[in-house]
């Protein structure tokens, strides 16, 4: 609650969010109950979750309590779980794949392991943030931002190319081993082509950016004034605000909003395995993640973008549509391996 008192985020919005959270969760249960209560109640479904236990376990418990569907959750790295699913093939014990990024979902989809989702599920999410074949949907969005320290940079650079200005030499932080950085570079390849991406990365490398182990460390370095700019995801700033209070946070997020890779909105998303024999119960989970209760959880706990309209998000964030994310098929983010090769060639991998 410290978050609301101290932060510049409006207290009312958060309270409203909580109110809707509790009010609507009842409704969700009713809808799910009215159609599938007989088959799904007391059933156990297995989730392969690429999203971390510390962030997700409360949501999963909430789902089980409200729907009576029990969950077996197998946590892992999204990519590793995708590899596991590819190895298991149609004998997989998993009913649901809940992944941290679109690439992993895309890989499992193209192996033919996901079943099509009903239209009420796919229609709930903007076409940009779901599979073209209707086999997975985003459950929350994570926007790339340029985090900056206003004490050091009065007005942040307005495009990715401005970052190549020599005045930012050794002033830019990034997390080279992080999956979201690699997704960003993948988006760069998809929007600018191989040569264009390579040119930008070479320019960045010439500016000697500072490598950090994690996005959180980049954020902390910007906030403390160690560096001026950082290429990370939007929610790290809000994590810090909720942890130490808004008055201690100097750093600000800048959204490029220019359809370039810097405006990429990557997703966490979910799909139902074609081999699942408990499709109804699995779908009740998918619907729950997209319900107001599920969406509010992401907005409030992980500070991510909700994917369905009607869920209140923090007012200091530009809306999802305003972000102007690049017009790419998110499933194409699965070409991370090529990205790593490129990063190695320009010397940005081993830093």
């Amino acid at each position, binding site marked *: 609650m410290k978050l609301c008192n101290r932060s510049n985020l409006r207290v009312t919005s958060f309270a409203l969010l909580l109110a809707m959270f509790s009010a609507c969760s009842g409704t969700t249960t009713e809808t799910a109950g009215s159609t599938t209560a007989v088959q799904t109640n007391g059933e156990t479904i*297995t989730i392969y979750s690429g999203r*971390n*236990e*510390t*962030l997700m376990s409360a949501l999963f418990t909430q789902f089980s309590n409200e729907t009576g569907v029990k969950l*077996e*959750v*197998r*946590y*892992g*790295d999204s*990519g*590793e779980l*995708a*590899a*596991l699913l*590819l*190895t*298991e*093939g149609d*004998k*997989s*014990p998993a009913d649901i794949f809940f992944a941290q990024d679109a*690439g*992993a979902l895309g*890989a499992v989809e193209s192996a033919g392991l996901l079943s099509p989702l009903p239209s009420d599920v796919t229609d709930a999410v903007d076409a940009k943030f779901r599979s073209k074949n209707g086999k997975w949907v985003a459950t929350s969005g994570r926007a790339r931002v340029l985090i900056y320290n206003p004490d050091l940079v009065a007005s942040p650079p307005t495009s990715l190319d401005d970052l190549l200005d020599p005045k930012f030499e050794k002033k830019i932080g990034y997390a*080279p*081993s992080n999956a979201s950085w*690699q997704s960003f570079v993948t988006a760069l390849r998809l929007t600018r082509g191989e040569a264009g991406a390579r040119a930008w990365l070479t320019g960045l490398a010439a500016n000697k950016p500072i*490598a950090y*182990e*994690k*996005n*959180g*460390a980049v954020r902390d370095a910007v906030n403390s004034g160690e560096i001026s700019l950082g290429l990370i995801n939007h929610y*790290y700033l809000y*994590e810090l605000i909720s*942890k130490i209070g808004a008055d201690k946070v100097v750093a600000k997020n800048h959204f490029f909003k220019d359809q370039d890779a810097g405006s990429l909105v990557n997703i966490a998303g979910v799909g139902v395995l074609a081999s699942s024999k408990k499709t109804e119960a699995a779908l009740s989970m998918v619907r729950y993640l997209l319900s107001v209760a599920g969406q509010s959880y992401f907005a409030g706990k992980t500070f991510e973008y909700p994917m369905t309209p009607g869920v209140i998000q923090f007012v200091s964030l530009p809306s999802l549509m305003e972000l102007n994310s690049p017009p790419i098929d998110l499933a194409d983010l*699965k070409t*991370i*391996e090529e*990205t*790593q*090769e490129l990063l*190695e060639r320009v010397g940005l*991998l*081993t*830093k």
Partner: protein
Amino acid sequence: MSRVLRAPVAIVAPAMLAGVVALLPLIYLMDASLSQGFGAAVREIIDARTTILLIRTILLTLIVTTLCVMVGTINAWLVVRSSLPFRPVLLILLAMPLAIPSYLSAFAWVSWIPTMKGFFGASIVLTLASYPYVMLPVAAMLRSADPMLEDIARSLGVGAYSAILQVTLKQVAPAIWAGSLLVALYVVSDFGAVATMRLETFTWVIYGAYRAGFNPTRAATLALMLVALALLLILLEKRLRTRVSQRIGSGTARSTVRRAPLTVVAPASIIAITSLGFGIGVPLISSIRWARNGTATTDWSEVFGTIISSFWIGLLTGTATVLLALPVGILLARFKGPLANITEGSVFVTHSLPGVVVALSVVYLGINLVRPLYQQLPLLIFGQVIIFLPLVVGAVRTSIEQSRIALEDVSRSLGVSRMATIFRVTIPLAVPGIAAGGALAVLGAMKELPTTLILRPTSVETLATSIWKHSVVSDFGAVGPYAVALMFLAALPTALLSHVAVAKSVK
């Protein structure tokens, strides 16, 4: 010991079974590698990038193995042959890097000196993590080697350094080669250190092919190349390994402890102090610092629960591995011949495979053949047995080779059957080696991350998986308690291992 004996079926059958078990991952690898046709696999092999990877991996293996031979041999010599005080404790401490997972020590280094990422950092971390593989067998052999040869050399006017290099080193050469093979196979298969140091080696790319490339064909093809590389290393070691030199005098050899000149002890001590400070000091201090600076509140019941499950999984893996390794060790030590060579090769060849490959092989076999056991404890243990079998086989074999075959002959001459002799004489004599091998497997299982993550029963957490879980979210404070707990828990088998493996030498 060149008597040719026909091995009893009761030894041959289980030993061959062990060989088959160890080779099981190859079934999956062949299938995955050829799933897109022979051409795709060949293209992967002749790819220019693969060549660069191969060169880089071989270079890293060469450098780390050389460094380990130097550090491991010097430390072993210091512990066995010098007159330093507290040598038994020193030996156990020097073996402690075995208790620290490479991903933890690499991370400790990187958070201390971020600029050491890359080839340099990976070489340092891997050397510190694996020199005990050379140190322990060399220390054991130094103990059993007759110091008289060195004395004779000295009496003939050879200097202290030259005597060690020309005489003692030759005596322990077999142990050095055996240790080097383990180090080399370890370097080739390790992922934790190269990932943290971000050095693109085979394992890095294999993991990448799975996790980022979603390309099992590529991963499997590269893994098969690792198997080929391992085969090469095994054959090389076999050629280089010479026969154990026997004592020259009769009677009991005199104590190996001697007053070595300071000019030798002093530089050796510096090496030992450096390996202690860098090998265990850096990771331990980092973990304690994470634990203390952590803002996250630690759930101690979870820490305790994971200690218990790590302990049990370690113990089960250790026991199962020893049972499977025993017949192989006996076969290799006592019934040398083509059959023994083939079994040895099969057991060691998959030791070069990274954990994720072995785990996915077990997934592939488990889900298709023994579905009810899938994601159950037995399959996790099975996967870990495949990984640690060679370590235990090595320990058992050495131990049996070193015990006196004459005692077995006496037993046979008294009318005891071959199998009864094995159970009543051979195995009891080799107990220290068997225990040391078991401890190696226990230790490995406690540290092993990818296999545990993929094969564990859903919702089972070990210390290693908890470290992983907490390190993924931003706060490292939460990792601290688990990291410290893992190091202390793994220190127990490490202490046992170093003690029994070289027990006599430090008494």
